[in-house]
């Protein structure tokens, strides 16, 4: 149903434009000082002007986020598979994982800094530790809830545990995995920027920190815009991959289209 799709997209775009227009109007009508809330147009101008300075910081944040994310996904998948395959491991390890995930990650940044000094390493580690939990939970849940009937098809053929995991468990878990990837990439961003604001001399987080101590509020907002843009871009990338890999799980839309 392409009609509905277009209308949906038009509404989304309209809402975004309206949001910024309302913001702009609000600032103009109340005569808001740009030290408190700069207008979006001011933020855009700052963004364009300062872009050459911002660029290396964008790359820095992107790099730490992606490294942390990739490591977090690797670790998360590994742990998720172990926990998901074995009922005992699931029951045993879950309380520890929940406890670990409940710790606010701001609290661990100083510890990482203490161990590794300030800079990229704590940013990567914070991104990793914050993004790997949703991956573990989703992989483990996907595997643990695989229908025994599907597994029986392979078991009756004398398939090994690994065969069953590879041919049934993992493909079945893919929709869960991609759902968690989209959450995890946003989390990784939060982790990296968080660590940069606390302990780094590079990265968007650090730029925003410095700008705010100089009362350069439009630059702070420019940093926010950059973060939002990067977050959306990465989310889109994973949504597209998800659509290709796990189209079977969202087939109802296709059925209407064909």
């Amino acid at each position, binding site marked *: 149903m392409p009609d509905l799709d277009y209308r949906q997209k038009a509404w989304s775009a309209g809402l975004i434009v309206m949001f910024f227009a309302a913001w702009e109007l609000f600032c103009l009508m109340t005569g808001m000082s740009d030290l408190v809330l700069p207008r979006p147009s001011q933020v855009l101008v700052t963004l364009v002007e300062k872009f050459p300075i911002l660029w290396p910081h964008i790359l820095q944040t992107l790099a730490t986020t992606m490294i942390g994310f990739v490591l977090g996904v690797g670790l998360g998948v590994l742990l998720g598979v172990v926990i998901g395959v074995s009922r005992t491991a699931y029951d045993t390890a879950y309380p520890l994982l929940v406890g670990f995930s409940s710790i606010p990650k701001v609290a661990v940044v100083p510890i990482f800094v203490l161990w590794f000094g300030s800079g990229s390493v704590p940013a990567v580690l914070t991104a990793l530790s914050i993004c790997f939990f949703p991956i573990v939970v989703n992989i483990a849940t996907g595997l643990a809830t695989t*229908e025994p*009937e*599907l597994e*029986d*098809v*392979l*078991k*009756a*053929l*004398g*398939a090994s545990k690994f*065969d069953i995991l590879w*041919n*049934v468990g993992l*493909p*079945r878990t*893919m929709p869960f995995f991609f759902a968690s990837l989209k959450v995890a990439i946003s989390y990784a961003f939060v982790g990296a920027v968080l660590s940069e604001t606390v302990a780094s001399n590079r990265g968007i987080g650090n730029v925003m920190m410095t700008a705010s101590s100089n009362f350069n509020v439009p630059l702070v907002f420019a940093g926010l815009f950059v973060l939002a843009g990067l977050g959306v871009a990465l989310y889109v990338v994973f949504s597209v991959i998800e659509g290709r890999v*796990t189209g*079977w*799980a969202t*087939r109802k839309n296709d*059925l209407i289209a064909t």
Partner: protein
Amino acid sequence: MMRMQPHSEFRGSPVPGPAAPIAIELSEASVTFGRGARAVPALSTTTLRIADGEFVALVGPSGCGKSTILRLVSGLVQPTSGVIVVGGREVAARALRVGMAFQNPTMLPWMTIERNIMLPLKIVEPFRSKFRKLRKTEFRDKANALLEQVGLKGFGTRYPWQLSGGMLQRANLCRALIHEPRLLLLDEPFGALDQFTREELWSILQELWIAHRPTVLLVTHDLREAAFLGGRICVMSARPGRILDDSRVAFARPRTIAMTFEPDFVALNQKLRAFIVDARAASSKAAAAHGEA
């Protein structure tokens, strides 16, 4: 515990002649699910021998442990007591190539029908080691040839959710057959189909059996189905199941649907029906007595 009474005119010797080797042997096998107070006996001590190339139909009231016997033979369930020997060795050894079709078609939703049907080739030797090389040529042709045989030509590239229940059941049968199994375990594979589709698939299955002569163990509710397909019919009692009667079916093959309306065939059906009605009555009486106590 279980003795077979010389009960029927259709009954032959329970042990097949020495010429045919034994494909399946259940010796004093029983199954109980759960433990202690919650234990549910699913299958009473049962002894059953099936010769290589035999077509055996298992009938009985629902919940009587027919499927449990299939699951024992396929290794999906372990016996609580007794021994299961398949192809001369313990079940776990997989001495025979086994094909199984379940009551639900259970196609993997992320694969096309073609790839679903090729799944056994991906798992079972000697096909497994050649799978990467042949999956786009010989194996795919094989899958499509089978699909054509069951009337699903051209549906190989569809996904399971694009097919109706009856079509999925046909595909399910293809998946059970593609790796040329020597032992075919069918768990009410035609249960959810309309009568005409069912009869059509009976004939297809019969043709395949005559051509390849695998050993078949078919679990069914449908007495006509059992009598049409089976070379031998085992009637089971209500839960916990045991084998009440074990008869040979003498009708010549290939059998036709028209034959199912002839007096001999109808008489056999009625005899089987009487067994199951008795078994059901006995079990409800037992349940009532249990309730009073």
